[in-house]
């Protein structure tokens, strides 16, 4: 009895250590999105390089697609960009570029310089639609299914591991 009593503080200590250790290893920048499992918010936005044309999220219905939030002013976007370019070459999943709070001219130059993996690019110049998507750290990437439900969201630059371990298996699953 007394022996176990002396062990209680030790167990408490270990319990708290494990709890705090886990807390330290979490990334506070990754806020779980409340949007996963919900319908992608509606938008109708102008298209880059297509005069007077507009694209709405309902135009993508029936397809599994990626929405990638980027901007020419965004440094980390450059980090993930080669991965997106490669993804576009190897996959038939369309990527819709979501140009967030950017100048269209700057976006064109940026895409010319770094490659254009996007099927189309929509312009959210004032960031209003971005707000509906809970965008706060560009780049962000959403995977949206054929019924318009958001299935996955990544805040920050995509890595090859995100693509091969999360996105591709999920696409496989959604297509069945």
């Amino acid at each position, binding site marked *: 009895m007394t022996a176990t009593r002396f062990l209680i503080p030790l167990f408490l200590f270990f319990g708290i250590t494990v709890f705090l250790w886990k807390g330290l290893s979490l990334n506070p920048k990754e*806020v779980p999105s409340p949007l996963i499992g919900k319908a992608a918010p509606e938008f109708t936005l102008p298209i880059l390089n297509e005069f007077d044309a507009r694209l709405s999220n309902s135009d993508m219905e029936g397809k599994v697609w990626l929405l990638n939030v980027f901007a020419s002013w965004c440094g980390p976007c450059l980090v993930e960009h080669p991965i997106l370019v490669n993804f576009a070459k190897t996959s038939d999943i369309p990527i819709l570029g979501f140009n967030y709070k950017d100048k269209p001219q700057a976006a064109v130059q940026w895409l010319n310089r770094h490659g254009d993996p996007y099927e189309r690019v929509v312009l959210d110049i004032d960031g209003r639609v971005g707000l509906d998507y809970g965008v706060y750290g560009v780049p962000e990437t959403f995977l949206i299914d054929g019924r318009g439900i958001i299935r996955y969201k990544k805040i920050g630059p995509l890595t090859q591991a995100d693509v091969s371990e999360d996105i591709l298996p999920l696409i496989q699953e959604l297509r069945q």
Partner: protein
Amino acid sequence: MIKKISLTVLMVFLVSNLSFAEEAPLLAKDPELEERVKAISVELRCLVCQNQTIADSNAGLAIDLKNQVRDMLRQGMNEHQIKDFMVERYGDFVLYDPPVKGTTMVLWIGPLLMLILAFWMAVRIVRRRSRGIDLPQSSEDAARARELLKD
């Protein structure tokens, strides 16, 4: 002494600077509306600069969110509707006061439980110690000591 004075001067400078910083961006076209925007803004977290409220922050996102709050107030929405709007998009984390629910229970009742536990332990220790003072008197050593102290 000089150090103290220069420190004071520095402090005054910093404080006055701060108050300037607060006054400058106020677009007080409608002071009453701004007051309400501010009241709501101090309860919303800026997600880019996580330990600041959107009222304190001048980050692009914080400004957008403040504008959004202002627009929604103009449209006649109340504080509750505005907070729901933010939570729908950014999650509970956007609120400075986390809501009471299953996943946040630890936050709300954890400190209270700790306090009760600490109190309970303190009571136990104090009781045991106060009992402990009598304890040696009944033991053999104490009896011998009393014997020796008799004369």
